[in-house]
């Protein structure tokens, strides 16, 4: 309960002002496509140079929390996920916004983010010593199987046909291969100088989701005004709280998935939302309605991606090993103030360490309050005429893609992928499985390559990749997941053919 004792410094006037500034700034940065939480935290570090260490870290903590949640704003309203973590939110959230339920979707998203976020920080506060060693025991073979587990959900994600989903996933895996291979440094598929740095995940994300959207809006021209004219239904916050709490299954799945995936270094917290969304759908009686504006989908995705925040810091704070890119940036922020994370952190600098963790907790409350306020305003975005909205999205997309690495090439790649995706969409492909392929490809590949070197030096490939409790558990999950997808597909086909016979 030591953390309660350290709440004092958080509730001073200057600290609260910093926390509010960090939260509001984080929400805005997060809502801007292309500015991922990692980028946002990195941008803020120079501002902490001249601050007191505890307050500097409060700013970073609040901003980290808020950017993760802020990414949902653009995902829901514009179908452009602010960061990979918000892909799953876009699937049902955008459908809700199209029905005029944007305010409701945003409210649900911030409330479930809050619940997930608080759960994650509590795990960080109470279970850190227990989980730190466990988190480190994940080696290349386990991460390889986790990535394969992710691949098994590609087929069923947001597409009507498993085959099209898998095909889109394969295209994604191929796109991930472009550029210099991250382990060996070999050139692959570099036909243009724009591809030298490979395809950055954020640029791909923006292109694949936003550009087809823009083209579709412009297609309507000035005549099809009805396309966007949705009535924005105001929604009571208390009702949203009720709805969120009325989905204990989605909250539980989101919380558990977010905490576990957040803990595993290198798994990429970005897939937490997608995995949780997929699991929530499998266990839901209304699974067919997912994708058409199901509140449960938004809740599951947002609970998970915020539950990931706390646990992702466990290996950093206790062992000085950053488990995620954002944690690596935060490490830089700590070091600048002469604070070395590690087993002695809580002994040597308890004030700073606890101020940081407490600011994550307080940040969750502030994030929800400011988020709900934004929700009321932002939902009106859909009333903007399509031609104007489309050009606005295009500007944001170009700006976002450029700002990732200050590179014109990312803009070219983003536009090219987006135009390609527009044509694929005409044939019933969807961007979510494609992006999942781009995310999982490098994780599976680099861990396979590393695992192979280790296996060849040790006991051989089979025993390294396929034996051991953790490997066996993960392999059985993969088998179960494949089995489930096949069974569903067969059942759907049978239903379809019965329907055809009946007519």
């Amino acid at each position, binding site marked *: 309960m030591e953390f309660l004792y350290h709440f004092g410094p958080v509730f001073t006037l200057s600290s609260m002002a910093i926390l509010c500034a960090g939260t509001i700034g984080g929400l805005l940065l997060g809502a801007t496509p292309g500015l991922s939480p*990692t*980028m946002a*935290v*990195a*941008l803020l*570090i*120079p501002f902490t*140079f001249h601050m007191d260490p505890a307050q500097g870290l409060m700013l970073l903590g609040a901003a980290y929390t808020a950017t993760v949640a802020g990414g949902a704003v653009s995902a829901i309203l514009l179908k452009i996920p602010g960061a990979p973590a918000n892909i799953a939110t876009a699937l049902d959230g955008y459908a809700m916004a199209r029905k005029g339920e944007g305010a409701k979707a945003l409210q649900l998203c911030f409330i479930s983010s809050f619940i997930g976020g608080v759960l994650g920080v509590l795990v960080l506060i109470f279970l850190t010593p227990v989980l730190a060693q466990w988190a*480190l*025991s*994940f*080696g*290349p073979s386990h991460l390889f199987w986790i990535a394969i587990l992710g691949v098994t959900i590609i087929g069923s994600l947001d597409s009507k046909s498993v085959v099209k989903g898998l095909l889109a996933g394969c295209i994604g895996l191929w796109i991930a291969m472009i*550029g*210099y291979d*991250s*382990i*060996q*440094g070999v050139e692959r598929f570099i036909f243009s100088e724009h591809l*030298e*740095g*490979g395809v*950055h995940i954020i640029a791909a994300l923006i292109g694949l989701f936003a550009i087809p959207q823009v083209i579709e809006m412009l297609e309507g021209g000035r005549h099809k005004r009805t396309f966007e004219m949705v009535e924005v239904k105001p929604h009571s916050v208390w009702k949203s709280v009720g709805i969120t709490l009325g989905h204990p299954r989605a909250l539980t799945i989101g919380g558990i998935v977010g905490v576990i995936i957040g803990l595993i*270094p*290198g798994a990429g917290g970005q897939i937490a939302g997608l995995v949780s969304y997929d699991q929530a759908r499998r266990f839901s009686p209304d699974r067919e309605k997912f994708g058409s504006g199901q509140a449960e989908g938004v809740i599951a995705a947002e609970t998970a991606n915020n539950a990931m925040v706390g646990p992702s810091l466990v*290996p950093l704070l206790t*062992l*000085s*090993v*950053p*488990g995620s*890119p954002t944690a*690596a*940036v*935060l*490490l*830089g*922020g700590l*070091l*600048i*103030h*002469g604070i*070395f*994370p*590690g*087993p*002695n952190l809580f002994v040597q600098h308890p004030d700073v360490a606890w101020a940081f963790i407490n600011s994550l907790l307080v940040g969750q409350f502030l994030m929800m309050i400011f988020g709900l306020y934004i929700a009321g305003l932002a939902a009106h975005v859909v009333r903007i005429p399509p031609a104007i909205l489309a050009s606005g999205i295009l500007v944001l997309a170009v700006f976002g893609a450029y700002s990732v*690495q*200050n*590179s014109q090439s990312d803009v070219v790649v983003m536009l090219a992928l987006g135009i390609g995706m527009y044509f694929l969409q005409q044939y019933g492909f969807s961007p979510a499985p494609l992006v999942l392929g781009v995310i999982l490809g490098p994780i599976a590949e*680099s861990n396979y390559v*590393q695992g192979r*070197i*280790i296996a*060849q*030096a*040790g006991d051989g490939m089979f025993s390294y990749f396929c034996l051991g409790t953790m490997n066996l558990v993960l392999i059985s999950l993969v088998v179960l997941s494949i089995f489930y997808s096949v069974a569903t597909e067969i059942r759907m086909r049978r239903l379809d053919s019965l329907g055809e016979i009946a007519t």
Partner: protein
Amino acid sequence: MKRLILGMAALTTVALAGPTVAADYPDRPVSVMVAYSPGGATDFQARIVTMMAGDEKYLGQPIVIVNKPGAGGKVGWSAFATSGGTDGYELAAYNIPHFIAQSIKFKTKYTIDNLEPIANWGADPAVLVVGKDSPFNTVGDLVTYAKENPGKVTVSGAGLFVGHHIAYLQMEKATGVKLAYVPHKGGAPALKSVIGGQVMAGVNNLSDAFRSQDSLKILAIADNERNTEFLPDVPTFKEAGFDVDDSSVNFRGLMVRKGTPPDVIEKLAKAVPEMFKDPKVAKQMKAGGSPLKIMNREEVQAMWQRREDYLKELLKDL
């Protein structure tokens, strides 16, 4: 677009100011391109050492860090060597031996011949680390084991043809044993695999290993002298009896493109080392566990050339 505007602005400045360009230089903020992502060691040190640039004693203009990460630095350095400005307003951070090794090993657009060093700010030697529970207590233990089990000792490091890999290659050469190098996507994941027990040993940065001493044993340092400031008790490879010198030490500093006016280079070469010596910079660097190593332009030029010659020899057979 930005580059175009900057370029146009530079042209106008040249046209209007004529030969007095260096007298006014710099009259607007200067950018430094870092070829690694924000938050990494290079980025974080670059931000510290340039934070005093706005002081009238030094440049009198602030320095802005621009990150262009990708492919172990290749993306940023290629872009810099082909399209960076030559007006002295666009600088870049270098990492030795990374960019020299890459320019030897791959057909890169950058070599030491089309870049001009300004000054060096840091030197981070590589160290050999093993997990806390490892049976190895000295480099000798590890080498003896590796002699009996050739190719069985896994050693992690941050990628191929970076400082860690160079130190690994030197170690193999000096000890005559065969090990297994496991490249990772950066120093942090490579260190994680040592602490987590996925590999038996690792080559990593002194600064990062120093901070993780509670979960690691540091066996040796790949430098010519011991590091008295951070790790006074850790022997060098040479003291341990193996001929590994300081060729893998990760030097960081600032450079410009060849073609930058000589008077601008001269002005930078004079002001920048003074800026690195600022007490505030030293304090922040020490706080971050990052060793400072300030070298002037002539010293860096000589160091680049020595590395180039040595690495050509070492990487010849690979």
